[in-house]
Each structure stands twice: as structure tokens, then as C-alpha cells.
């Protein structure tokens, strides 16, 4: 073993005080887990929300009576559902004043045929009038969706031969989309004209999604982009007047996004507050440990002085000890939080019932760096009082009589 050097001294000091070192590292680890884990979760939620907002091209959704909540759930979380009215209502709606674009969509919640599959939301859209789904699909899939073909969301289990089995029928999958962190990942998209076939297949297996007689006419929602200068609520009033139906449901996707964002911000705010309190408490603990060890180590520091250490060396020693503790705690904390969060992102997204999308490697890397900086800084702050004392110009460390 090579002899001691000044550079190795901090590590020897840490190694020979395993319990003190372990306690300090554990405190920093916990703080880092809270900081880095919290930041990672918040970032993923925000990414999911942004992605959801991007997918919401409509200002207003007109849905059947009492299905507004279902429609909202369909937008924000993964729960799928089936609801419909007939397309003559859709035509009435389209006549109202203030509508820029309008398109009908049909939602069918399928029972999964293959083993272990989750329920799949089938979304039928009309390529002729669609302004919501098509732009997004074409950004990833170039080509027209033929009748009978589907485009699958990211979480859909496409079998090896490029099909998906729904209602015991194999639908060819034209493309699979990238993850969005929203319910759209659990959806398959079909042409409006494919819907009657889907209904027919469902009837064949005894789970008729929509009564056969409505198969050609059922739509679930009319998505509306308001004309310039019209407010979504005004348009909703116009629709009620124009159609003469007072019982339609209205969903404002913008409002849904805004509500979700507000909830999320409140959540992040509370989490941040909690983190600040937690950090302060942890810092107090670290502070106390360093301060008490300073008293314990007075004699040790005096010995360094006697041997010819400058004040700078003593400060450097303390700084390197605490930075090492901070770094170790940071590395462990980030490893623990990463192991707990990154592999389980699908599960977390599902449990949260909020749009949750794992951010890219670059952002994660930036968060890791921030987490490490946070940990080392915490370690340094904890030792700052000790360092200041040690660098005081009037000699603080002397050898006393009888010591």
C-alpha cells in the first residue's frame, strides 16, 4: 500500500469513521432522492401534459347527454368508453353559427380478444373533415388509411404479423405511433367507414358495441374548431339554439387541459414546498453533525496546524470530505431514484391517471447533473461554518495545557 498523501487524507478520515460517514451519506441520499425523483416525476408530468395539449386540436367537443365526464376521462386518462348519438344530430350541430371546422368521431371501447390485452379504445375518424387526428398521424405515417386498416397507438400490442386482433378479427396495422403519454397511446384509429365493420365483428362475438341498427349512423362526438373571433362557450350556446336540442353535452378540451395543468401546478407547488422543508431539515441535521464533529476534531486540526498545514489546507480538507460525502450521497440517491422511476414509467403513468410521458435521455441527463450538483452543494453548505471557523485569521487552534 502506498504511503499517505494529502490527497488521500480526506478519504482515510471518512473511511475510519464509517458510521458518521454512512449517516451523512444517508441524509444526502434521502435529500437527493426527494429532489431528483421529484424533479423527474414533475418533468414527466409536464411532458405528458404538453403532449396532451398538442393532441387537442379541438376547442369544443359536442357529446351525448351526460357523457361529458366520460369524454373528459377519455382525453386525460386511459379509461376507455363507448357512447354515441346519431349522425343527424352531428349535421344539425354543424349548421350552428361560429363553427370553423367540425368533424365527427366515434369511440368504441373494445373487449380485448387476445390474452392479457387491456381494453382498447377504437377511434373512428372521418378523413374528409378531420383536423384533429390526421395532422398528427400524418406526421408519423405517410399515406392514406384504407378501409379496414388501423393505426395503432404506442401501447397497443401489435402481433408479429402486423395485425391486431379485435372482436376475433385480425385488423392489419398500417402504422404504430410514438408515445404521447395520453389515452391516445391505448387507442387504435380507423376510418369512419370501417366502424360499421367493427360493429358487425363485435356483434358476431356476442358483444355488440353499438346496436346493429345504428352502426351506420352512430357518432360519439363532434369536434369543433371555432371560427375566428368566437368563444367556445358562445359556440356551444349557438349549437343548442341551432339544433334545438337542449340536452347535448359539451366538453372544452382547452378547459380540461387548463384544469389539469392547474392541478398539476398546485401539486408541483406543494411538492416543492415539501422538498424545501425536507431539505432544510436535512441541512440542519448535516449542520449539527459537522459542527459537533468539528468540536470533536479540534485536536486533530490543531495537530495538522502543528505539522505545518496552512489554514487553506484545513479548509480544503473539510471541503473535500464534505464534497465526497455529497457526491456519494448524490450518486446513490440518483441511482436509487432512477431505478425506482425509470423502468416503471408505464405503471406510474397508469397509477397517476394523469398524462405522463417519460422525457428524453437528454433531459434525464440534465436532471442527473442537477441532482449531483444539488447533492455536492448540500454537502458543501453543511460544512461551510466549519470551514469559516478554520479559516479565521486569529488562531483558533492552539494546544492547551493538559490536553
Amino acid at each position: 500500500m502506498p504511503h499517505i498523501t494529502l490527497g488521500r487524507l480526506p478519504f482515510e478520515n471518512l473511511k475510519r469513521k464509517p458510521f458518521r460517514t454512512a449517516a451523512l451519506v444517508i441524509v444526502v441520499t434521502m435529500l437527493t432522492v426527494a429532489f431528483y425523483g421529484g424533479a423527474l416525476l414533475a418533468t414527466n408530468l409536464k411532458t405528458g401534459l404538453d403532449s396532451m395539449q398538442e393532441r387537442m386540436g379541438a376547442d369544443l367537443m359536442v357529446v351525448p347527454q351526460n357523457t361529458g365526464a366520460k369524454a373528459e376521462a377519455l382525453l386525460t386518462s386511459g379509461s376507455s368508453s363507448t357512447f354515441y348519438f346519431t349522425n343527424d344530430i352531428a349535421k344539425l350541430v354543424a349548421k350552428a353559427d361560429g363553427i370553423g371546422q367540425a368533424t365527427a368521431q366515434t369511440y368504441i371501447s373494445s373487449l380485448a380478444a387476445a390474452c392479457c390485452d387491456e381494453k382498447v379504445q377504437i377511434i373512428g375518424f372521418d378523413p374528409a373533415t378531420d383536423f384533429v387526428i390526421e395532422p398528427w398521424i400524418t406526421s408519423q405515417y405517410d399515406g392514406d388509411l384504407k378501409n379496414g386498416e388501423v393505426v395503432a397507438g404506442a401501447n397497443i400490442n401489435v402481433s408479429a404479423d402486423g395485425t391486431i386482433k379485435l372482436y376475433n378479427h385480425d385488423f392489419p396495422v398500417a402504422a404504430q405511433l410514438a408515445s404521447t403519454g395520453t389515452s391516445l397511446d391505448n387507442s387504435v384509429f380507423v376510418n369512419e367507414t370501417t366502424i360499421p365493420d367493427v360493429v358487425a365483428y363485435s356483434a358476431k362475438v356476442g358483444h355488440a358495441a353499438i346496436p346493429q341498427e345504428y352502426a351506420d349512423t352512430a357518432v360519439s362526438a363532434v369536434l369543433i374548431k371555432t371560427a375566428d373571433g368566437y368563444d367556445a362557450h358562445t359556440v356551444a350556446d349557438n349549437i343548442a339554439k341551432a339544433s334545438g336540442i337542449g340536452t347535448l353535452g359539451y366538453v372544452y378540451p382547452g378547459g380540461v387541459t387548463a384544469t389539469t395543468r392547474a392541478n398539476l401546478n398546485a401539486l408541483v407547488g406543494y411538492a416543492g414546498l415539501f422538498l424545501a422543508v425536507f431539505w432544510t431539515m436535512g441541512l440542519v441535521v448535516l449542520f449539527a453533525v459537522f459542527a459537533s464533529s468539528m468540536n470533536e476534531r479540534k485536536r486533530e486540526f490543531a495537530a495538522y496546524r502543528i505539522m505545518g498545514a496552512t489554514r487553506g489546507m484545513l479548509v480544503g480538507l473539510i471541503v473535500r470530505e464534505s464534497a465526497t460525502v455529497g457526491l456519494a450521497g448524490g450518486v446513490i440517491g440518483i441511482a436509487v431514484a432512477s431505478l425506482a422511476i425509470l423502468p416503471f414509467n408505464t405503471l406510474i403513468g397508469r397509477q397517476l391517471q394523469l398524462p405522463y410521458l417519460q422525457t428524453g435521455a437528454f433531459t434525464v441527463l440534465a436532471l442527473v447533473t442537477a441532482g449531483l450538483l444539488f447533492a455536492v452543494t448540500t454537502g458543501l453548505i453543511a460544512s461551510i461554518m466549519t470551514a469559516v471557523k478554520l479559516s479565521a485569521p486569529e488562531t483558533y487552534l492552539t494546544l492547551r495545557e493538559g490536553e
Partner: protein
Amino acid sequence: MAILEIHDLTREFTRRGSAFPAVDHVNLTIDTGEFVAIVGRSGNGKSTLLNLVTGLLSPTSGTVRVDGHVVGSLNDRDMARLRNRTIGFVTQSATLLANLTVLDNVILPAVMLGEPAADGNDDDTPSVRHATQDTTATPATDPDMPDVIAPAEADATTEDALTRRARTLLDALQVSDLADCYPKELSGGEMRRVSIARALMNRPKLLIADEPTGDLDADSTAIVMRLLRQTADAGTAVLMVTHDPDALGYVDRTYRMDRGVLTTA
């Protein structure tokens, strides 16, 4: 040649609002190779005097010169260098570092300033090296003691010059078998001897010993005092604070310190 010159040195402390001198107008000069002892009861300013000499405390008035440098006029870095290279300090208390092995404790002063000090250094006084070799040659030499040269050849990468010197010093003090122990495994006498080895590591011109025989038995006292005498004979100025009458037989001059005033005993 005077290594230590203390001129009219005073240091006052404030106790319960009134100033009192812990060290009162002290004059003292120690030359190369001289062995000087200061005796006196506890609380009479001996430790304060030593802290002033090493620059850990600054004087109220008067000057301390070590090897021509006025202590207190130097900045922290130069003062640290002086403490490291010119002064060796054997402390009264157990100031060995608990986290380092005995061997590393002895080596540490040599690596303190970044560059090795023990070999090829201009402070190098061959006579001190001679003295340590003398002591290894004394009959006290442990027969089991590993030959200083042989392992260096056998394992040249790990047994470098500093390690060799540290082992030589530990041999001289008959504690070489404790090299890999940690201080808490040592007895008081062993710790004292290790701290003497540490003080000698950088071949100081001035060796200060604060109660070096404080809690030692007669045999250990004899070993320590013989070594200090040999160190002085080899050209190092030695200043010792003690109240052990047995220790006074080895010194050249003895002073008494009483309420801060130094008088010839």
C-alpha cells in the same frame, strides 16, 4: 548559531475583564545542538510560550525568531512552511491522527506541503540522519526488525524513500512493529514515541517537546530522553517543557517558569 531567539516576549490574556500576562517579558536564546528544559507548575505559561514560538498564538509584544525568521511577520503559508520544515513539535496530548496508521502518521508531515521534504531537501542536515542511524545501531535494536534496505529492493514500488525514513525513525524508537496499527491500539508511551518520530520526520532544526515523558515509565523515559539527547548532539536545538525531574539529567540548561516569568534554575 542561534536557532531560537526570544526577545522580551509578552502575551496577555483577558480573564474576567482584566488583562494578565501569561508570558511576561521572556528572553531566551537556544543555539544549534543545545538541549534546554523549562520546568514549572501547570498554568504558569509554558504551553502559551510554546504556542507563541510556533506562531499558533501571536504575541502582545516582543519577538520570536526561529532560524532567522520573525514569527508573526510571516504570512500563513510561510509560517506553515516554517512549522513544517524547521520546527518539530512533540505534543503533550495524544495528537496522533486517529484515522491514520502509525506509519502514515509519521509520514504525513513530509507530504504536507505537496513536495517530499525528507530526502534531497536543502534543509537536510546529514548529522540528524547520522543520529538516527546511530540509534538503530544501539543494542536496543530489535533482532526481528526488518532490514531497512532489503525490503526496499524486494518491493521497490511500495517501499519508497519516505516510508523507509519513517520506518527507520520508528525502529530507533522501538515501535516499528506498531507501524500498521492505529493510534487507539497504542499505549500512552507508544503514542508519545510515535509522535517524537513524527516530529523528527522532516529533520527539524528546532525540536519542541511538551512534556515528552509525561505519562511514561522509567524505561520509556530513558529511551525518549536518550533519543532527544542524541537529536541535540546531532545539531538540532531542543526545547523541552517538563516537570519530570528524571528528564533534567539529560539537558544542557534548565529554566524555571513562574507566573509567566522565566528565570534560570
